């Protein structure tokens, strides 16, 4: 029965159920709003679990694909068309699909959103608007990972920005408005660059000829574009077919690749485009940071996979060493700065920069081990940073501070939270038996084949990570009890549930990584098909 349902669309718009329900609740009724909102995040979660169960890890290509004509703009009305051509049009379709790379990210999104919704119960004001934004954000994120068309991707990518802007700007800390503005500015610039790159792609590689229908069209479909770039006889690669028409010359390819690199590099973030996310980490409410750090940053890496490696294999190869060096800079720079921060949230922000460096290393290695490591790191870091900020939220709610100096000895007053915090720290520093190790191991393993020297420099990060993680975690949990943490109450039931769930997944992925690597495998092979080897 399920086969006939448009599962992806159902999942994509399932947060609308919550949104609609919320619209009918008076905004003063805080408990009801929370109850509805939290339970409505479980609907997408359940749907994504159904997808995971139904997904065939050994199948090739996209699954659950849906394709509906969306934007069809006839151009032949306005422009004369070559002889023998009957139609000339833009074709952007509402095209969805998931493969082994996007499905885990979809599942990560629904899972972390549900966990973050649970931990948002501490939000103090305007619950209704908060959760409306929250659910809207979920639609955007899901769309980004499901879209199979550049325009659709772009639309969903933009949709995430607006609710995020309000979530930071209204519910954040003191400097929330500045943080929100900065977030929007940087991401807006990123989007603008991405948009230019997409337009170049659509107007060159998206330009195709359909012999049956005798029509010329511009398409935003990933597959059409990737196939045209790979095909040396396509319009995209041939200057002479249309008499020197606008085509994807090597120079333009490199330009587009760099545009994409910067656009997604801002999101990831790649040094030196990282400063905006520091503010988001410190100012946004912790439950929003769970989503930001857990999912939104991953959209940058996802973009690098889909549009960098997949569409521009040659350029990726050409730039691999630069990517590897950028990755090492991210790792080491982030780690050293994490080491000197006095505020837990900033430690974690720089830690994210450092950990995203591992994604770059994995991509730079351009072999299946490295790509597996990079993709694994997306999921792993998503879970770990969500867990971290879940705990940050609890610490902040209880003590009113996340300054390292004012915290200490929490293991005595909050043993459960401290224990989970320690596990999160261990996962973050890549301890075997946690997901962090598998990701780090595979990414480095891949890189060692290609750039052993860069990889050795990168392993410095393994030590530095241990240093800054232990510094922060032990300062807060071990040692004499600081006044701020005295007489506190350990995790409530509603708080421990997401903690336990996140820890369980982190351990599962650490102890039995085959569950995820098997799923990633075919998708990554397809993505790196242009690389060879």
């Amino acid at each position: 029965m399920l086969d006939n349902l448009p599962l992806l669309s159902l999942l994509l718009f399932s947060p609308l159920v919550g949104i609609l329900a919320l619209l009918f609740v008076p905004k003063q009724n805080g408990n009801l709003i929370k109850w509805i909102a939290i339970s409505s995040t479980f609907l997408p979660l359940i749907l994504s679990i159904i997808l995971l169960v139904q997904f065939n890890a050994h199948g090739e290509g996209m699954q659950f694909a849906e394709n509906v004509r969306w934007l069809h703009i006839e151009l032949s009305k306005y422009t004369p068309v070559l002889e023998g051509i009957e139609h000339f049009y833009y074709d952007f379709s509402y095209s969805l699909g998931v493969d082994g790379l996007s499905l885990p990210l979809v599942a990560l999104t629904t899972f972390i959103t549900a966990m973050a919704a649970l931990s948002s119960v501490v939000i103090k004001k305007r619950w209704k608007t908060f959760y409306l934004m929250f659910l809207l954000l979920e639609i955007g994120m899901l769309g980004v990972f499901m879209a199979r068309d550049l325009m659709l991707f772009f639309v969903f990518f933009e949709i995430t920005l607006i609710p995020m802007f309000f979530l930071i700007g209204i519910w954040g800390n003191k400097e929330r408005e500045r943080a929100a503005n900065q977030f929007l500015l940087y991401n807006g610039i990123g989007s603008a660059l991405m948009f230019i790159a997409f337009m170049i792609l659509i107007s060159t590689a998206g330009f195709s000829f359909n012999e049956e229908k005798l029509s010329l069209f511009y398409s935003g479909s990933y597959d059409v574009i990737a196939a045209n770039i790979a095909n040396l006889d396509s319009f995209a690669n041939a200057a002479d077919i249309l008499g020197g028409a606008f085509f994807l010359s090597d120079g333009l390819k490199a330009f587009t690749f760099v545009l994409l690199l910067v656009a997604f590099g801002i999101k990831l973030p790649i040094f030196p485009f990282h400063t905006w996310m520091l503010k988001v980490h410190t100012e946004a409410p912790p439950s929003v940071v769970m989503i930001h750090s857990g999912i939104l940053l991953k959209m940058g890496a996802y973009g690098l996979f889909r549009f960098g490696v997949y569409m521009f294999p040659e350029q990726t190869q050409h730039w691999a060493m630069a990517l590897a060096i950028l990755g090492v800079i991210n790792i080491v720079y982030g780690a050293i700065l994490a080491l000197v921060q006095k505020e837990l949230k900033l430690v974690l922000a720089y830690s994210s920069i450092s950990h995203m460096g591992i994604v770059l290393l994995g991509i730079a290695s351009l072999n299946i081990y490295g790509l597996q490591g990079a993709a694994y790191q997306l999921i792993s870091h998503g879970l770990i940073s969500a867990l971290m900020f879940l705990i940050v939220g609890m610490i902040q709610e209880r003590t009113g501070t996340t300054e390292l100096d004012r915290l200490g000895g929490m293991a005595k007053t909050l043993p459960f939270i401290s224990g989970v915090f320690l596990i999160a720290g261990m996962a973050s520093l890549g301890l075997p038996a946690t997901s962090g190790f598998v990701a780090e191991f595979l990414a480095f393993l891949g890189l060692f084949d290609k750039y052993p020297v860069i990889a050795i420099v990168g392993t410095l990060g393994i030590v530095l990570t241990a240093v800054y993680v232990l510094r922060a975690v032990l300062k807060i949990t071990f040692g004499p009890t600081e006044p701020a943490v005295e007489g506190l109450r350990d995790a409530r039931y509603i708080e421990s549930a997401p903690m336990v769930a996140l820890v369980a997944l982190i351990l599962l992925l650490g102890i039995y990584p085959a569950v995820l690597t098997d799923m990633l495998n075919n998708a990554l092979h397809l993505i790196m098909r242009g690389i060879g080897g």
Partner: protein
Amino acid sequence: MNTDFTQLAWLIPLFPLFAFMIITASGKSQKALGTGASIALTGASFVLSVLILLERLGEDVTNYTWNQFHWLSFGNFTMNFGFEITNLNAMMLVVVTLVSLLVNVYSLGYMKDDERIATFFGYVSLFTFSMLGLVISENLLQLYVFWELVGVCSFLLVGFWYHKPEARAAAKKAFIVTRIGDVGLFIGIALLFWHMPGNKLDFTSIHNAVSAGELTGGIATAIAILIFIGAVGKSGQFPLHTWLPDAMEGPTPISALIHAATMVAAGVYLVARTYDIFLVSEAALETVALIGGFTAIFAATIAVVQKDIKRILAYSTVSQLGYMMFAMGIGTWAAYSAGLFHLLTHAFFKALLFLGAGSVIHAVHEQNIFKMGGLGKTMKITTITFAIGTLALSGVAPLSGFWSKDAILAQAYEHQPLLFWVGLTAAFFTAFYMARLFFVVFTGKSQAKHAPHESPKVMTVPLLILAGLAVVAGFVYFPGNEFLGHWLTGMEMEEHVHWNVIILSNLAALGGIGLGYFLYGKNRDLTVNLATRYKGLHATLTNKYYIDEAYEAAVVKPLGGLGGVLQVFDRVVVEGAVKLSVGVMTGINRIGVHLQNGQTQTYGVISIVGIVVILLWFVGRRFLNVG
């Protein structure tokens, strides 16, 4: 060969893991359940280990391997986990489970009044699981996984009394310093992966690849040395030894189990497990021998002036591990056997000494040996067993330590004459500092504030058992009885009896003990004179050659400074540059689009205008060209 029990070897680590799970699930208030589960299940592991050992003493034993757990797989690539039982593993299993069991029992008494005793037993069980998992690992990656897990358990137990700032610092240091070594091992594994035929990492394949000459030359040297760096970290070898003495902040039973008998010996075990790679590289072997030999004498000299009973034993452990490494570095199978033999005997007598020290600390609530004194009268069992441990460690015939040390020295005498004298000198210092420790603590006048009392039976019985082993464990391997060496390596040992070595090492031991007795048993005032006369030397030794200070100055401080500089760089330069460019862009935007309605709308308008412009431009160009 009979493998009835061997094929059940995977249960050995799972028993203590199960204990850990029971304890975690039942919570820290269930003290009796927690301690009981831990002891019973560790006991089960011990029994099974002994049964496997007995099985392997029979005829025609072959290595037993099972590796069907697909840990990691994608495409054609699979990384399997499993277990392997060789004679070496079987020996290690018995050592680990036995010491763990005894420490479990002992802790019933030692940790009785601690309200977190169940947590303690949980951590110990988790450690035992990880250590046993390390021992039976069938490939290097799996070993690395458990290698890190034992490190975490060590970290948790060193920091068990987490409210103490010293314990926190020690736990952190233990983790970070060993991690430096671990990174070496990590790189070694990565390189090995790419240089092994078929990307295999299991020990059998490594052995085969080396035998077939597929792993040689510079890359073999690099891999061997990187693996050794891992061992240096874990086994507290110079220059990564600094964490081990600090780790004495943990409860004493932990020092006996983890920081004397089992985990710290894992470095030696690792070298033994990958010995094939070392054997093809002269340079790697030399490195191992030199580092080991140097550490042996270096740590022994520090132990001479320390005042904390546990720190003296910790430096002694560092020194003895150096001895084992040094043996491994000699590079013959006889030396290899001697090194592992020393690992075996050391596990017993050093665990004994630590548990004895724990018994003393339990009685006097004090760790400074000069604030003890005269304990021999009240603590009979502790004193006698400690004396046995002291003699065994000092290498007095015919106790176990003598035979294992003699086996190492005899091999050094044949192959590394210079290092032989280093080892002999270290043996002299060893005997001296142990005699100092013994006479100061157990003889003379009591300096203790508390009236000392003998420890309860749960603590003295493990001491007696270990004392018995410290006496007899040496007889499995001595000149004329090559049983252990042959059993471990499957080769005939061409063991020559070197009477001069036997005599010299006994002389060194007795000389050290004699000098210790002369200075600390009879003329203690003289030592004060000596300390003042050689003030510089004394200060250098007391401050452990200022290694910690050197690291502080050379690594920690500069790193902090670099962090500070980068922080400013990040705030001013990076953010400044971006702000500037953003400023320029918004400036242009203000001029172009007169909108004051806030960022969102401005942004929206820019986007839409941008879309339109770009669309028009592309369409237009295409159109022009087409036309």
